[in-house]
């Protein structure tokens, strides 16, 4: 299960968050934990370089893309490698929508599209789509080309 996908800006404010199977009372804890993890480790990290951590049986893969930091949390079959696949799909889709690693402004300008991409990539805790070309078409309700 992919437990959470989270986007935050440079100051650690949440831009988008999606939780799956995480009780509401634990979300605040996760939010602050992830943002702190990013603040501690993401300084000076190159765009899309993946960082990884694990706590008991839960895995966290996170990275930075332009002004935005992205965190993905998973457990069971979504271990660090599966999560790196998820985060790779997310970063490719965001880059595709924004044209390049986004500034915060650009990210917010494309907010609706990014939400749609996320909707295509992760659905209630499961990875649904992985190819950016396909995602690009799906968010415009176009069928995939290979079909």
């Amino acid at each position, binding site marked *: 299960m992919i437990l959470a996908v989270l986007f935050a*800006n440079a100051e650690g404010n949440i831009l988008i968050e999606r939780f799956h199977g995480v009780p509401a009372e634990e979300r605040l804890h996760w939010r602050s934990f992830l943002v702190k993890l990013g603040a501690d*480790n993401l300084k000076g990290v190159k765009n899309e370089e993946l960082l990884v951590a694990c706590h008991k049986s839960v895995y966290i*893969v996170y990275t930075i893309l332009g002004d935005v930091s992205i965190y993905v949390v998973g457990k069971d079959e979504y271990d660090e490698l*599966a999560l790196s696949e998820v985060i790779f799909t997310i970063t490719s889709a965001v880059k595709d929508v924004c044209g390049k690693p986004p500034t915060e*402004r650009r990210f917010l300008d494309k907010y609706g599209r990014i939400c749609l991409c996320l909707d295509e990539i992760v659905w209630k805790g499961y990875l649904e*789509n992985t190819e950016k070309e396909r995602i690009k078409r799906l968010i415009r309700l176009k069928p995939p080309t290979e079909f």
Partner: protein
Amino acid sequence: MAQSYVKKDDDRDDEVEYSPFMGIEKGAVLQEARVFNDPQLDARRCSQVITKLLYLLNQGETFTKVEATEVFFSVTKLFQSRDLGLRRMVYLIIKELSPSADEVIIVTSSLMKDMNSKTDMYRANAIRVLCRITDGTLLTQIERYLKQAVVDKNPVVASAALVSGIHLLQTNPEIVKRWSNEVQEAVQSRAALVQFHALALLHQIRQNDRLAVSKLVTSLTRGNVRSPLAQCLLIRYTSQVIRESGNNTQSGERPFYDYLESCLRHKSEMVIFEAAKAITDLNGVTSRELTPAITVLQLFLSSSKPVLRFAAVRTLNKVAMTHPMAVTNCNIDMESLISDQNRSIATLAITTLLKTGNESSVDRLMKQITNFMSDIADEFKIVVVEAIRSLCLKFPLKYRSLMNFLSNILREEGGFDYKKAIVDSIVILIRDIPDAKESGLLHLCEFIEDCEFTYLSTQILHFLGIEGPKTLDPSKYIRYIYNRVHLENATVRASAVSTLAKFGASVDALKPRIFVLLRRCLFDSDDEVRDRATLYLSTLGGDIETDIDVRDFLFGSLDTPLVNLETSLKNYEPSEEAFDINLVPKEVKSQPLADKKAAGKKPTGLGAPPTGPASTVDSYERLLLSIPEFANFGKLFKSSAAVELTEAETEYAVNVVKHIFDTHVVFQYNCINTIPEQLLEDVIVIVDASEAEEFSQVFSKPLRSLPYDSPGQTFVAFEKPDGSPATGKFSNILKFIVKEVDPTSGEAEDDGVEDEYQLEDLEVVAADYILKVPVSNFRNAWESLGPDCERVDEYGLGPRESLSEAVNTVINLLGMQPCEGTEVVPPNSRSHTCLLSGVFIGDVKVLVRLSFGLDGAKDVAMKLAVRSDDETVSDAIHEIVASG
């Protein structure tokens, strides 16, 4: 200036950087949402408003019921628009608004229409939305379409239906299970993702049917799985089948191993890793099976991708716990990871190295770790400290450098949990390595001079009180302890007073000086400190005859369970009659099952107190002492681990702990009644000892009542020849009176029926008479025992799977403590020496040197040399091996 929702720093006045959502307000957005009702829809504007709504929701904004309903109704109007982009947004916002059951009806017809649409993408999205918001009744109406969608030609539609199926399985399993055939067909799909989703769903549908899962795995491992993600799932399912199929096939080959091994050559790293991990997780994995997996993991260690490095080192760390020698080849790669930028990777590398390193590499490793410690967080440091503790216990000769390391880091900055981990480690080392005692105690003394944590200071003072008086020069600790009386808070001062009293009671030469110090404490500003000083002065100042009482009072553990004492104190009403601690019940009150389960689930955090085996033995001893019939059995020699006598999830769960005394053996049967409608009374175990000739039953203590969910114990005691390691097999039947319990009132009926329940057999084996006691230096201990009572003989162990298996069998047979890491056999070895130590019943120290040799036909020969203080014990060890 309006404040941004997103940016905290409103000092930034560069206009380009302003958020497009600056100044956004819920009320205004809800107003804007009225455009959804326009007869001429402006698709672009509507999309913008939906984006704003999404933004508000993502920022944690909540809508009132009325607001949500209003927005939802307006959104449904947008189904009229033909604009594709807008339609896609509509699907998303409906899911986000998650309308209530009575609202869903409004949108159902539109979605049903889309589900039958010729436009594939409408179908896919409508399925996802419907499955998100629908309930069971509607599901039966749309089931037909969903089934069709599973095998739809368009992979997006098929995936939408399959992933919906995974979610619906949680709420409506009986419906989704009917799709089995379609899902099976989808597993063969040419589209990679469809195959992935179909496989996940099919496995979930069949997960409780072992045979079906086994068939699924058998057919797919032969076939062609396109998606790496699906391949990973298949590897996981395969591991599950291997685990459940138990042992190897008749040919000796492990089923599906070839498949796992072939996955190590897959082009996707994810699949390679999954296969390597599956191999390392195999039950009783052999070195030959491990080698290819370790090789690929070693390659990953030097990958440029941090995720791969992390995954590899994490897996190797786990392997190192059971097969340290298998990982040694990777040590060089792992050493270079100590400087990895990612601290999680570096910590895992270090702790793995600490597990696989040999005695000669300890010093070099410690040097590297010292540099590393300064720039990691406390939680990583704790992991390292724990790894160093185990390393020190493994190589006791290296205690000096490891103890120095611990004392150095104890002086540095750190939080409570970290400091506690270090102090706990030092305490354990002092307890287990006699040579380390003096230096360890001094390190602790120095630490309390400047310790900011009251809890740690009091714990250390307590420990000093027990261990300090037993050292060669107890007087040198007094200064450190008495300093606490001057410089600390009341809690620590009170502890220090108790510690001083312990020194006074144990060391006669110090007594007069301790008196002087205690008298000074009579003027302390805190009443607890004064009270303690007064109490100790009067107890220590008594006659010599009361010396034993004083020692009992100061050092004896409280033989009354704290919970019972607390309850009795609460119930005590002030009266003429003084509170009498002897009237407090000593029987350990059983803990309700629910609590116990919860406690088991609770993650033992890093700060959780370590529960050493000593505490279990102590609590057993206390429990047995509370039963008068066992009082004359003498000192408890050993308590075994609990042996299950019932299978999991049966009506009554029973396990047994064997308590060994010099002339007696007591079986403690721990029983749990798992049926809420039953109350058991007069529970007893009828033991048949016909296959244990040397034992004769002397006593049996029934359990009066065993309510649901609340564990209780019944005991049976046997007499056996003095000091002899008598063995035998016992069959057990649980006998009781069962009474029905009314589920509403919880009252039990008056009349009960006698019933019995067959339990598994129980054996007393030779290993029950030997305590695992490590020695700090085997060679010295061996020399000091001398050859007088040495017995040497040779044995043929016959054909064995591996040398390592033979070594483990003998270790388990004897139940002794392996020393200096010699329980691990290096891969491909033809010979091996294993050193064991222990204490035989009657408190006789025993050391064993086992030399194994392997000939070509896998026949193992063993030379067994035993040394002890008593030749009959040396002979007894040989008898155990000869008859085992």
